[in-house]
C-alpha cells in the first residue's frame, strides 16, 4: 500500500434522482496508467470530479500520498499536484498558448526595479522545455484559435505540467481526435508515465485501454464492477462487464438487393470561405434501401458533402437531384418537407436547442404545422404527447422527461433525441454525419441498429463516419474521400478494411 498515491475509500455521491457513485473504493499506484472504464453515465466523470474538487462526496474519504484530504475546489486539487484535462477544453481562444498556460499563476519580473510585468520570455522557455521533454510539439506563441483540436489538447496537458501536476486525469481524451492523433496522444500518455507521472484515463474505448493502460476499473451504473490487470482480461470480457450484459460486436446485416435511385449528387464542387476547394467534382448515387457511407480521415470534405445535400451549404458548382427533382436551390425546410432527414455532426450547435426542453427539441422540424401548430398558435399539449411517445420509443433517458433541459442530458441521450426526431419525420433519405461520435458501446450499438432498420424499411441512407469499423459494419457501398475528391467507390462485399485504409491515406488512387 505504500506506493498508492491516490486512494478513494468508499466514495458515494448522490444527485437528485440518481446515485452517481455508489460506494466506490479504488487505489492507484504511483507511476501507473489507470483506466476508468464505463458507459456514458456510469459515473466515471463524477468520480473524477470528486477527486478534482468539483464535487464533494456525500460519503467516503480521499487519501492522497497517504494523507487524508478534503478537496473543495480545483485550486486545492491543483495544490495537491492533481491536474485534469476536461472533455470541453478551458482555453481562451484569442490568446497565445503561453498566455493560456500561465493564466492564474502568472510569473512576473520587475522592469527598472519597480514596474512589475508578465515574464513572457521565461514562461515561453519553460513551456518549450516541457513540450520537448514529453514530445508534445506545441508552439508557445501560436494563438489557440489557429490550432487544431489535437494541439489544443496538448496545450491542456502542458497546462497541467506547468503546474507541476503529478496525478493527471484525462476525461475521454480521444473522443475528439482522429485515429492518427489518438496514436500520438497515447504515445504522449506513455511518455508521461515513463516520466514518473500517475495517469488516470477515463474512457469507453476498449482498444485504447488495451494499448496503454496497466490496470482498469470498470464501472457500471454507478457501481464498481471490478478492477483488473489489463493483460489478464479480454476486450470482450471488458465490454460485457461495462455494459452489464453479453456484448457482441457483429451487427446482423441483410444484403442489399438494389432499388430506385433516391439521391444523385452530380459533379458537386465547393469552395470554402478562404476560397479553398474543399469538395472537388464529387458525384455518386444513393438508392432505396441502400446504405452509402463516405469514409475518410477528418477534414477531407466528407462533412461538406453531407452539408451540401442537406442544404446547409450551397455548392459552387454541380447539382443535387432528389427523386428526379433538382433541389440544388431549395431551402432546408423545402428539403425536409420533401423527405430528407439530417443528423448533423455537431449535435450541440446544429442539432439541438440546448437551453430548451426535450419536448421542444423533439418537435423542432415539425413545430410549424398541424398538429403542433394550429392557426398560428402552438399547442404545448401536442409537443408533450409527441415527446413522451418518442422518449418511450427510443429510450431517451433524462431526469425530468419532456421538461428536461437538453443541455443537462448526456451526449448519448442528446444524440438519441436527434435521431428520434429525424426518424419520426418518416423521410426517404437519411443523412447521418458521425452519428456515434463520442458515445459509449451501448448507445453506438443502439444507433447502428436503428440505421440498419431504416435501410431494411427501404430508406436511403448516406452515412459519414470516421470509424472504419462502423463503415464496414453498416454499409452496402463505400465511398472514400481524400482531399475533397472521391478516391474510390466500392461495394462493401468486395473490399477489405485495409484497402479502405489505404485509400483514406491517399495512397491508392483510382482514375
Amino acid at each position, binding site marked *: 500500500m505504500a506506493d498508492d498515491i491516490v486512494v478513494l475509500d468508499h466514495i458515494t455521491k448522490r444527485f437528485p434522482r440518481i446515485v452517481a457513485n455508489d460506494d466506490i473504493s479504488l487505489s492507484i499506484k504511483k507511476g501507473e496508467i489507470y483506466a476508468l472504464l464505463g458507459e456514458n453515465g456510469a459515473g466515471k466523470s463524477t468520480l473524477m470530479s470528486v477527486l478534482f474538487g468539483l464535487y464533494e462526496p456525500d460519503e467516503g474519504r480521499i487519501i492522497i500520498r497517504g494523507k487524508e484530504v478534503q478537496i473543495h475546489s480545483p485550486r486545492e486539487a491543483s495544490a495537491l499536484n492533481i491536474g485534469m484535462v476536461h472533455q470541453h477544453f478551458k482555453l481562451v481562444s*484569442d*490568446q497565445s498558448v503561453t498566455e493560456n498556460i500561465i493564466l492564474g499563476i502568472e510569473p512576473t519580473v520587475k522592469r527598472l526595479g519597480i514596474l512589475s510585468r508578465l515574464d513572457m520570455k521565461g514562461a515561453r522557455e519553460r513551456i518549450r522545455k516541457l513540450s520537448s521533454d514529453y514530445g508534445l510539439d506545441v508552439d508557445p506563441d501560436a494563438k489557440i484559435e489557429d490550432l487544431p483540436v489535437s494541439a489544443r489538447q496538448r496545450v491542456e496537458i502542458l497546462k497541467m505540467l506547468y503546474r507541476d501536476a503529478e496525478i493527471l486525469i484525462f476525461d475521454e481524451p480521444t473522443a475528439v481526435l482522429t485515429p492518427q492523433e489518438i496514436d500520438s496522444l497515447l504515445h504522449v500518455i506513455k511518455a508521461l508515465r515513463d516520466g514518473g507521472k500517475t495517469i488516470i484515463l477515463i474512457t469507453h474505448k476498449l482498444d485504447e485501454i488495451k494499448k496503454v493502460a496497466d490496470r482498469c476499473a470498470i464501472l457500471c451504473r454507478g457501481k464498481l464492477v471490478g478492477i483488473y490487470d489489463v493483460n489478464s482480461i479480454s476486450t470482450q470480457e471488458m465490454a460485457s462487464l461495462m455494459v452489464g450484459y453479453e456484448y457482441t460486436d457483429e451487427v446482423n446485416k441483410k444484403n442489399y438487393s438494389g432499388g430506385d435511385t433516391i439521391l444523385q449528387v452530380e459533379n458537386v464542387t465547393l469552395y470554402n470561405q478562404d476560397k479553398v476547394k474543399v469538395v472537388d467534382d464529387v458525384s455518386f448515387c444513393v438508392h432505396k434501401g441502400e446504405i452509402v457511407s463516405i469514409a475518410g480521415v477528418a477534414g477531407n470534405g466528407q462533412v461538406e458533402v453531407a452539408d451540401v445535400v442537406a442544404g446547409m451549404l450551397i455548392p459552387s458548382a454541380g447539382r443535387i437531384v432528389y427523386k428526379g427533382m433538382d433541389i440544388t436551390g431549395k431551402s432546408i425546410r423545402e428539403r425536409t418537407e420533401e423527405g430528407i432527414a439530417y443528423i448533423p455532426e455537431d449535435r450541440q450547435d446544429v442539432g439541438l436547442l440546448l437551453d430548451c426542453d426535450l419536448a421542444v427539441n423533439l418537435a423542432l422540424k415539425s413545430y410549424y404545422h398541424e398538429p403542433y401548430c394550429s392557426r398560428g398558435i402552438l399547442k404545448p399539449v401536442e409537443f408533450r404527447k409527441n415527446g413522451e411517445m418518442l422518449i418511450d420509443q427510443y429510450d431517451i433517458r433524462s431526469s425530468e422527461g419532456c421538461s428536461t433541459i437538453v443541455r443537462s442530458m448526456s451526449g448519448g441521450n442528446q444524440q438519441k433525441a436527434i435521431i428520434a426526431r429525424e426518424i419520426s419525420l418518416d423521410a426517404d433519405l437519411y443523412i447521418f454525419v458521425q452519428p456515434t461520435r463520442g458515445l459509449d458501446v451501448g448507445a453506438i450499438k443502439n444507433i447502428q441498429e436503428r440505421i440498419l432498420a431504416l435501410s431494411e424499411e427501404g430508406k436511403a441512407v448516406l452515412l459519414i463516419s470516421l470509424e472504419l469499423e462502423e463503415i464496414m459494419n453498416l454499409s452496402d457501398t463505400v465511398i472514400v474521400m481524400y482531399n475533397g475528391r472521391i478516391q474510390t467507390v466500392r461495394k462493401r462485399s468486395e473490399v477489405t478494411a485495409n484497402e479502405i485504409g489505404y485509400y483514406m491515406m491517399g495512397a491508392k488512387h483510382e482514375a
Partner: protein
Amino acid sequence: MNSIIIDGLSFALPLFIIAIGGIYSERSGITNLALEGLLGFGAFTGGLTAAIIYEYSSIGGTASMYIALIAALFGGMVYAMLHALLCIRFKANQVISGVVINILATALTAFLTNQINASLFGRASNRFVLEVSPRFSIPLISEIPFIGAFFTSIYPFEIIILIVAAIMWYVLEKTPYGLRLRAAGDNPQAVDAAGANVSAIRFSAVMVSGALSGLGGMCFAYSISSNVSPSIFSGYGYLSIAAFIFGNWKIGPTFWACILFGFARSAGYSLVNVLALPSAYSDLVLTLPYIITVILLIFVSRANRAPKSLGEVYDKGKR
C-alpha cells in the same frame, strides 16, 4: 488648419480615455452601454466639487481643476458600481442595465444640480459654472509649421489623458491582472479553472470604465462648455463606444478612431467658418462624427471580432 488640429485633439482625447474605459469593461466580458451615463455623472461630481471649492475655499483655478478631475474620476467609479452590481451580482441583462444607468444619470444629475444650486448656493440654475481651463503651448516646437499645431494651445488634461492611457495600456497588456481580464471576456470558465475570481475581475473592470469615463466627461466639460449642464449628455459616450468597436476592442486602433472622429468634427466647424455659412450649419456639422460612424460600420463590421463571452452572464455550472 491649426484650429482643426487643436480642436480635434481636445475633442478626440477625452473620447479616447472614455473608450479605454469601455475597452476594459467589454474585454472583461461586461457590455457597457452606460459610458454616456458614467461620463455625465462623473462630470456632475466634478462640477459640484469645483463649485463648492469656488464658493467656500480660496483654492485657485488651476488647483481646483485638478481636484475636480479627481472628483469626477471617483464619481464615475462609484456610479459604475451600480452597473457592476446589476450585471455581476444580480446577473441582470447588461444592455438593459446600461440603458437604465444612462437614463437615471440624466434625470438624477438634472434634479440634483437644481436642488443643490438652490439650497447650497441660493441660485436657480441647472448648471455648475467652471473656471476656464488654462492652455499652454510648448515653446519652439509649437513654432514648426503644421506639426507645431499639435503642441499649441494644449489643455493640461490632454497630457493627463495621454499618461493615463499609457498606464492603462500597460496594465491591460503587460500585467497578470490584464491577462486575466482579457481571458475573462473570452472564456471565463478558463479563468475560473485557473483559480482566479471572474466576478472580481469583471467588477473591477467596470469600476475602471466608470473612473475613466468620469475623467473624460469632466474634460469635455472644461473644453467644450466651461460648465456642467444637461448638455453634457450629447452622445459622446455612444461615440466612444463606436470608437472602440472600430478599434476592435484594442487600445491602439481605438486611438486612431478617436482622432478620426475628433478631426472630422473640427474640420467641419472650420468649413462652416471658412465658407461663412449660417450658424444652423454648425448643427449639421455636429452630426458629422455620427455620419462617419454609419459609413465606417459598413466597412469594419465584417472584420471585427467582439470578445467571445461579451454580454454573457457567467454561470459556473454551465458547460
